[in-house]
């Protein structure tokens, strides 16, 4: 026990001195290796010193066994590489997150647009369904002055070309209060079934002539004839206005012509 105790006692100041200056510290491992572990030391002590040296070496840093210049030139490069990598990573991350949030705005906009379009499509579908439903169609047809047909007359064409009229053609009767305009009549039966329908058709198509129109809307034309220029607003009115001078004269003549048409009104 005495010898090992003495040895460290003697040696301790050396160690503590070494630790006071950085310059001496650098030499610690080398010194220790050569100075503080004499060959004559016993195994345990030797191991203990070796251990301590090892610890010291670890604390100080990597031993400089080889050329110091190689270490000095490699480390900054490595650090720069790592920094560059970090910087690149940072930039990439920033870019990705920016892109992601930008995309999320685009996505949000697209979603809103899709939702709006879905709602619009749903509304349009609903409107279409309502407008194409049978009751609405019937009502709108009635508003246009159309009348459901009861028992139309039919033409049966025989193989030899002969035509037979089945049923009795008659004008559809409108029950609703507003006076119906000329009932749309299929020209075919009209041609075949003769007088009354032909007359109706002919009259419906006849008034292409402004004078005839003026005659058709007789009271209005006459009213406009009295102060033609002032009231010439609608095309019909204009025509009536232009024709105003003739209207009254022609009205009588046309009124006489009309009954001459077959089976007049």
């Amino acid at each position, binding site marked *: 026990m005495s010898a090992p105790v003495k040895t460290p006692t003697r040696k301790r100041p050396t160690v503590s001195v070494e630790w006071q200056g950085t310059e001496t510290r650098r030499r610690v491992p080398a010194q220790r290796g050569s100075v503080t572990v004499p060959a004559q030391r016993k195994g345990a002590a030797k191991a203990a010193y070796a251990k301590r040296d090892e610890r010291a070496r670890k604390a100080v840093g990597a031993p400089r066994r080889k050329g110091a210049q190689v270490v000095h030139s490699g480390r900054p490069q490595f650090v720069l590489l790592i920094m560059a990598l970090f910087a690149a990573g940072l930039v990439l991350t920033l870019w990705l997150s920016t892109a992601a949030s930008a995309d999320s705005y685009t996505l949000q906009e697209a979603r809103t647009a899709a939702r709006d379009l879905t709602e619009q499509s749903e509304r349009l579908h609903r409107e279409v*369904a309502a407008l194409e439903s049978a009751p609405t169609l019937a009502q709108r047809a009635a508003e246009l002055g159309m009348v459901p047909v009861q028992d139309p007359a*039919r033409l049966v064409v025989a193989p030899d070309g002969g035509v037979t009229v089945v049923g009795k053609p008659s004008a559809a009767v409108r029950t609703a209060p507003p006076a119906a305009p000329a009932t749309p009549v299929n020209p075919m039966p009209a041609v075949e079934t003769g007088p009354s329908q032909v007359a109706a058709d002919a009259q419906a198509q006849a008034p292409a002539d402004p004078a005839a129109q003026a005659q058709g809307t007789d009271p209005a034309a006459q009213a406009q004839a009295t102060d033609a220029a002032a009231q010439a607003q609608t095309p019909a009115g204009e025509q009536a206005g232009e024709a105003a001078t003739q209207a009254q004269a022609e009205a009588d003549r046309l009124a006489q012509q009309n009954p001459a048409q077959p089976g007049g009104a």
Partner: protein
Amino acid sequence: MALLPPRSRPGSRSGSRPGGRTQAGPTRRPPRRPASTAGMAVRRFRAGRIVLVLLLLASAMQLVLIQTVRSGDLTASAEKQRTTRITIAAERGAILDRNGNRLAFSTESRALVTNPRLIAVNHKEQAPAYKAEMAQAVAAATGGDPNALKALLDADRGYVVLTTTADPDVARALRERFPEIAEEKRESRQYPSGTLAANVIGAASWSADNQKLVGRVGLESSDDGVLAGTDGYQVVDTAEGSDTVIPGSTRAQEPAVPGSDVELTLDSDLQYVVQQKLQDYVAKTGARGGSAVVLDAKTGEVRAMANGGTFDPRQLGTADPATLGNAAVSSPFEPGSVNKLVTMAGALEYGLATPDEVLQVPGSIKVADRTVHDAWDHGVENYTLTGVLAKSSNVGTIMTAEKLGPDRFSDMLARFGIGQRTNVGLPGESAGSVPARQSWSGSTFGNLPIGQGLSMTVLQMAGMYQAIANDGVRIPPRIVAATIGPDGSRTAEPAPEPVQVVSAQTAAQLRTMLTAVTQKGTGGNTGTGVTAQVPGYQVAGKTGTAQQVDPSCGCYASSTYWITFAGMMPAQDPRFVMGIMLDAPGGGTSAAPLFHDVASYLAQQERIPVGEPAPVQTLVLP
């Protein structure tokens, strides 16, 4: 750098025996480390170690407690706090007609709710003006009544529903303008055709309990299982106290399966015409009600089914409950002379009579204890069998029925499907009633052949004539053509089992006889249903008049009748069969003109080729 000093500590080597060393060499001890301090440190170290160990033990125990003993409870309550089960509503299927027109379908909508008390608190004295503004805006956007909305908002309540059918975008705009308005997600049922086929389709409305549309009446109710679909769900974590889903926290997910569409055999154009004409006719004749059914002669499909009274499924809440049913399948009545077809079919089928066989028909006939008269007074007349049917002679029919016998008559009734449900696919169907053969009294057989003492629905009545129209093969009527799954796959309904009622030859003979009903002849050769005639087509049909039972005396009333007509057109190759019943119309009413109106429409709409006029048959011989 700070690691080394401990190495230089003297105790590093002799630390195992601190006491001994301090005693042995106090002089060699470094001045910074007095002995007493070291001892205290050791004691503190020991105490600290013990405390730490105890703490560690306590922590370990707590850990064991939490991780094992109480683990179940804690996990459950933690999950309860976070986990939310979100129901994904399934869209309800549509109801389509045979041409794919949508008669009922669903759209997404929003209910707008608000809290008037909160508005009063938030806006203080400006509250009335603010409420008025809100009422105006909501009314303008949803088509409501601003005054009613204002009244709602002025009520001292914590929750009022402003509308239940706002479109999502409208709701969003209103909510942004008025922060007090909240939205509730709804599914709104659309009936674009309004009252069209309402008694068949029925109505569905929002159920607050189930948070979904629920069928209330008609097919919407009976086919609810098919239409409703299956709700999906999503189990997610939500931020505490809000509905914000934590992204990526979905634990279980089951997508909703939308309901299937139901395709009906109805033709909405025809349905509209039949419904309109029937309702007009019922109103015109002052009848209590009425029903009409149009069947496809070849397939038994129901093309139209209408009732005198109907309702608007869009205003289910205010509808008269009496109009919600479907009388065409649920209300049986005594058919009257329409039922004479059964006797004639039996007599022809069993070879007991021929259409032009002549019967000496007296003005009345005694059956057991009852005397049955014809509807008009006459002596003994020479009616042909066709004449008996066309003039609707009760006496002649009973004479023929007696030849047939009650057993074969009863069997024939069953073959025509009387007394059995057709299983058409509509809720509340009645089977009608036919007295059991064992319970027949002597006079029963004087009633049944002329259509009294038994009852049937309009649908069953039309079904009888469909058998005759389809060469004796009765195909039970069906109204649901197919279901169309959410993936678009169409599953046709199973075809009903056809029933051979009479032979094709008998059916053809009957059709010819039935055309005599609508014939206009001379010298008494005019049938009872002339007004059913459609120019250019042969109409085969039968009129009927049955006395109603007067509930006060339990006897047949003398002034109220069920007026019926059943027929088909064109008789040579029937395309359509129609049954009409009017409940207690004014005196002298016939249902034949209504048949004519609908048949005339059908002829145009379906472009049925014009045929030869029916030959005039001899009904009565001098």
